[in-house]
């Protein structure tokens, strides 16, 4: 292939060659190249196949808006699909592969779609693939899935690390072109904390791509000098390779830093990308402007490029796309490409200006054809020429060329300023949309604000930087603006499409949306720009229509007899350019996805061989298997051991709240539906908390430790919610109450000691008298453990056995657990987990989360007598509602399969025997299940309509989700020791 590298110039480093592969062939490039510039330098024009028609495509731009040259970069877990070759910094060993083509880029069978293009117009899929119905799932969908998409995502784990970070600054300058550099300088010199961010690998923006003359020297030199000063200022942070992708409330900006995308493997301990949230007092949006393509026949062929992109390749990368150029423009800026290409020694065949006659100077010897349009680009593998139609002529002339510079005008890159939902404003003179008039916290400046000459950008940038620093509280003045070579004023005549085109003219390159698709959408009734976008998919690709959106609005305006401002734009949303899932995830991957909470007894549980389960963020010991035991065998053995002798269980995860103050009792009476005025010091009481709507919220125990001092427990799941609820009730509803409260969940280890020998074991470690008379059921007292550890003992029972909960300071938890195990060894003490705990409470009919599910009242669960009639409390009023008092509600019962070997599952529904399964016949559902060692079969708790009247009845259990039906007997919810003899042992 021909080398297209120019002998002189450019910012590439000719002393540092780089080798890379593309489609498994080896190529050479230079340090400073992008993958796109290196491929062009090698004469490689064909870079991709388009999405729908599989047309051969080359690179169109030199930057972030690239729609065509998308490639897979890297291998295996690092493979990054849909990477824009224009943004990939070349490095040694770079591995790149083209996409969306089979078997190869040069010979792609998918191109056959192009032959049927008249069928595959916009929206074709709304009218096809419908018949026969069965074909959708079996034939069409699988085929479409294989054909759809561009790049392939990797299915292997990503070996790289990602970080998330925050930054604060006084002034965030977005974009480091002429306006941004001046703004950063003005704000930086004023002493403000400045962050200057730019998506490019180097700072300098458009100054790196143009041949400018500033203060008598080159634009490159001005950039270097400015950056040197900025680097030396301690209050300025430079962030190249950083795309500010979104503007959010509170002047918070999202930014993505490509920390190590420009090397094959990130250095150890460095992330590949960093996701920033930048909180800025003020921001300057100096994001520049994007050149519009022109819409004409064959405008998608490899070699047709943005006029400004060609300047970037020639000036920055010292690469020419070909040997002979044609410039097609409707505005003054296209002429610069002719000048720069000529200056590089490349031929320019002609400038074709759609306007009547520009006044711009152009090099002598280059024909200027005014009032003319290009109707078609000609050539197969390479462009051979263009057809040009002069105004008033009937036939076109052929001009020979092998690359085409197109310029349709400039679109200020206004996206960030519109992210909050404000609409941009049409400027008829410049034929472009400008940022919304009011953007508090964000100052658009430079080309992004419609300033399209260099001198204006420098001047406005300085003023904007000073203003931003001033608004952030610094004394700032505009700084001196250097002299520039006279630049010409900008002039344009809109040309939304060339109606005389004699070949397919593309509006959206990435999604293959052609000129005809837009009027088609309008004819079908989709005549607003938002509907046109969805119907044609224009603007919906990974480039989000950066090159197509405004042209689409212009074409729709003309097709429907409206003006461009009447059509408007589609909604601008973050992200400006794609952000990887890795960056969004940061370090929160795999087991680090959420924090892990371990109880104070975790070490002891591990020593005992616990199998842990996740309960929210907590790891709770679920069962303690002996060798060869599965979960059921272990839990069964644990239950038997506890009911026959003694066991200990870690119950530290339950919420614990310390409540003190003269008004503590009053607060308790308002929070719980049952009363606490009669709860004596040294005693505990079960409490039910309702929501304001009368439904059960949480249950727990309240222990009266000393006058005005209470200790409250909650369920594990609701600990946080109950704490917030108590805080709300006090601070928002009753701030006059003199109380203080604090969560002490993490401060205390809590161990349940349960079984007929529980007291005997505890007596060996606790000094105080634990005899039944001294420490009756529901006692709550301070005790001393092992001769010195201050603890609390509560005689409460979830298992229904003689049981206590021993509360010790968290740091003593493991030690006390080991102590109990050794002191209890003579009694055959066992550790038991959540499974055994659940089995025992279900055997006793004690309600828990499955029954306190937000739809039940105390009466539903058989706890109606706990609801006080003598006081006001949260939930009292709404709990009196008719529907909550109705006699036909679903109420708590026990259910026992008629066949002892049938397995019950929670969630199964209940039906009257013989009834057909339907919503009308639904009688309730099973809330909790367990295999009961005491009954030697599955049992459950359930909510059954009028259940208390139906004990003894046989009903159906219906579970078609898990293909299960059985008959059960409705029973009292307590299956074991109904008289509670063991409790009072």
């Amino acid at each position, binding site marked *: 292939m021909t080398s297209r590298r120019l002998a002189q110039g450019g910012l590439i480093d000719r002393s540092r060659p780089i080798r890379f592969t593309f489609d498994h062939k080896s190529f050479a490039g230079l340090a400073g190249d992008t993958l796109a510039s290196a491929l062009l330098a090698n004469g490689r024009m064909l870079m991709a196949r388009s999405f729908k028609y599989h047309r051969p495509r080359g690179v169109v731009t030199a930057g972030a808006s690239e729609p065509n040259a998308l490639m897979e970069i890297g291998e295996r877990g690092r493979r990054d699909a849909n990477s824009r070759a224009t943004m990939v910094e070349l490095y040694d060993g770079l591995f790149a592969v083209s996409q969306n083509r089979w078997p190869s880029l040069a010979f792609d069978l998918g191109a056959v779609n192009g032959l049927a293009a008249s069928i595959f117009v916009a929206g074709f899929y709304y009218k096809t693939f419908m018949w026969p119905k069965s074909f959708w799932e079996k034939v069409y969908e699988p085929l479409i899935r294989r054909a759809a998409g561009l790049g392939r995502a990797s299915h292997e784990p990503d070996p790289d690390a990602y970080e998330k970070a925050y930054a604060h600054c006084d002034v965030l300058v977005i974009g480091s072109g002429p306006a941004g550099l001046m703004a950063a300088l003005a704000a930086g010199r004023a002493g403000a904390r400045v962050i200057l961010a730019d998506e490019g690998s180097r700072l300098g923006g458009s100054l790196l791509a143009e041949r400018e003359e500033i203060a008598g020297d080159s634009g490159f030199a001005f950039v270097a000098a400015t950056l040197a000063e900025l680097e030396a200022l301690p209050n300025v942070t430079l962030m190249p390779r950083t795309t500010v992708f979104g503007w959010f*409330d*509170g002047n*918070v900006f999202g930014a993505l830093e490509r920390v190590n995308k420009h090397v094959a493997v990130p250095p150890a301990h460095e992330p590949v990308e960093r996701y920033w949230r930048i909180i800025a007092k003020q921001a300057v949006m100096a994001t520049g402007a994007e050149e519009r393509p022109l819409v004409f026949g064959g405008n998608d062929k490899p070699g047709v490029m943005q006029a400004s992109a060609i300047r970037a390749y020639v000036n920055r990368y010292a690469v020419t796309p070909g040997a002979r150029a044609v410039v097609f423009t409707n505005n003054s800026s296209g002429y610069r490409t002719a000048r720069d290409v000529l200056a590089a020694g490349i031929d320019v065949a002609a400038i074709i200006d759609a306007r009547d006659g520009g006044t711009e100077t152009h090099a002598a010897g280059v024909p200027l054809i005014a009032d003319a349009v290009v109707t078609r680009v000609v050539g197969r593998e390479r462009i051979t020429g263009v057809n040009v139609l002069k105004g008033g002529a009937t036939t076109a002339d052929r001009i020979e060329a092998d690359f085409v510079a197109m310029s349709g005008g400039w679109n200020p890159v206004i996206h960030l300023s519109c992210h909050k939902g404000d609409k941009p404003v049409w400027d008829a003179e410049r034929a472009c949309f400008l940022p919304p008039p009011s953007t508090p916290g964000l100052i658009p400046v430079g080309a992004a604000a419609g300033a399209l000459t260099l001198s204006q950008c420098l001047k406005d940038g300085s003023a904007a930087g000073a203003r931003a620093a001033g608004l952030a509280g610094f004394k700032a003045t505009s700084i001196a603006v250097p002299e520039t070579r006279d630049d010409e004023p900008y002039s344009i005549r809109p040309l939304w499409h060339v109606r005389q085109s004699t070949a397919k003219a593309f509006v959206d390159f990435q999604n293959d949306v052609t000129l005809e698709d837009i009027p088609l959408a309008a004819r079908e009734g989709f005549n607003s720009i938002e509907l046109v976008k969805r119907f044609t998919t224009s603007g919906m690709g990974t480039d989000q229509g950066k090159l197509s959106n405004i042209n689409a609005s212009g074409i729709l305006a003309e097709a429907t007899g409206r003006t461009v401002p009447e059509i408007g734009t589609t909604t601008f949303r973050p992200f400006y350019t794609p952000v990887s899932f890795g960056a969004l995830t940061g370090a929160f991957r795999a087991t680090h996805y959420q924090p892990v909470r371990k109880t104070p007894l975790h070490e002891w549980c591990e020593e005992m061989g616990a199998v842990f389960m996740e309960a929210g963020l907590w790891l709770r010991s679920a069962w303690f298997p002996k060798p060869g035991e599965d979960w059921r065998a272990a839990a069964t053995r644990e239950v038997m051991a506890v009911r026959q002798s003694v066991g200990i269980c870690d119950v530290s995860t339950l919420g614990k709240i310390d409540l003190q103050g003269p008004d503590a009792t009053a607060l308790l009476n308002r929070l719980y539906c049952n009363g606490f005025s009669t709860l004596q010091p040294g005693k505990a009481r079960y409490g039910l908390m309702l929501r304001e709507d009368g439904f059960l919220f949480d249950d727990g125990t309240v222990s009266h430790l000393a006058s005005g001092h209470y200790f409250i427990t909650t369920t594990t799941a609701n600990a946080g919610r109950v704490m917030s609820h108590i805080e*709300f009730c006090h601070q928002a509803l009753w*701030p006059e109450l003199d109380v203080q409260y604090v969560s002490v969940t993490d401060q205390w280890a809590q161990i349940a000691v349960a079984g007929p020998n529980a007291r005997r074991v505890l007596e060996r470690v606790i000094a105080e008298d634990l005899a039944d008379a001294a420490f009756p059921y529901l006692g709550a007292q301070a005790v001393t453990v092992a001769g010195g550890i201050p603890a609390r003992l509560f005689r409460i029972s979830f298992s229904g056995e003689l049981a206590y909960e021993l509360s010790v300071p968290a740091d003593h938890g493991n030690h006390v657990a080991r102590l109990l195990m050794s002191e209890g060894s003579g009694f055959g003490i066992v550790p038991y987990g959540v499974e055994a705990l659940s089995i025992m409470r279900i055997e006793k009919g004690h309600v828990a989360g499955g029954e306190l599910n937000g739809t039940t009242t105390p009466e539903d669960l058989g706890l109606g007598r706990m609801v006080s009639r003598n006081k006001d409390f949260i939930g*009292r*009023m709404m709990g009196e509602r008719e529907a909550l008092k109705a006699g036909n509600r679903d109420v708590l019962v026990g259910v026992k399969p008629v066949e002892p070997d049938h397995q019950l599952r929670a969630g199964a529904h209940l039906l009257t025997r013989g009834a057909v399964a339907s919503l009308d016949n639904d009688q309730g559902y099973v809330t909790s299940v367990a295999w009961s060692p005491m009954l030697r079969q599955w049992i459950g708790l359930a909510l059954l309509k009028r259940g208390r009247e139906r004990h003894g009845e046989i009903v159906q259990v219906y579970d078609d989700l898990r293909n299960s039906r059985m008959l059960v007997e409705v029973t009292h919810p307590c299956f074991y020791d109904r008289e509670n003899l063991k409790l009072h042992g």
Partner: protein
Amino acid sequence: MLIDCPYCGERLSEEFTILGDATKQRPAGSGASDIDAWYDYVFIRDNPKGRHREYWQHTGGCRAWLVVERDTLTHQVYAVTPARDASA
């Protein structure tokens, strides 16, 4: 969004948990004739476009309950008051 906690200073909204409308008054009466006021307090909420006062708790900080006046459209925060002072 940034919320200026009176105790902790300006913090990102991720540190806070929203409860909802702070303009509803919990009815004082608890007789049968008050049921309509209770129904309104528990269930009925306006959904205003514009400035609105809401309860937020600084769950990731000082745990104070706050009344935040913010614009539901622009998310601009106008005032942040401790709930205990707002109800006085």
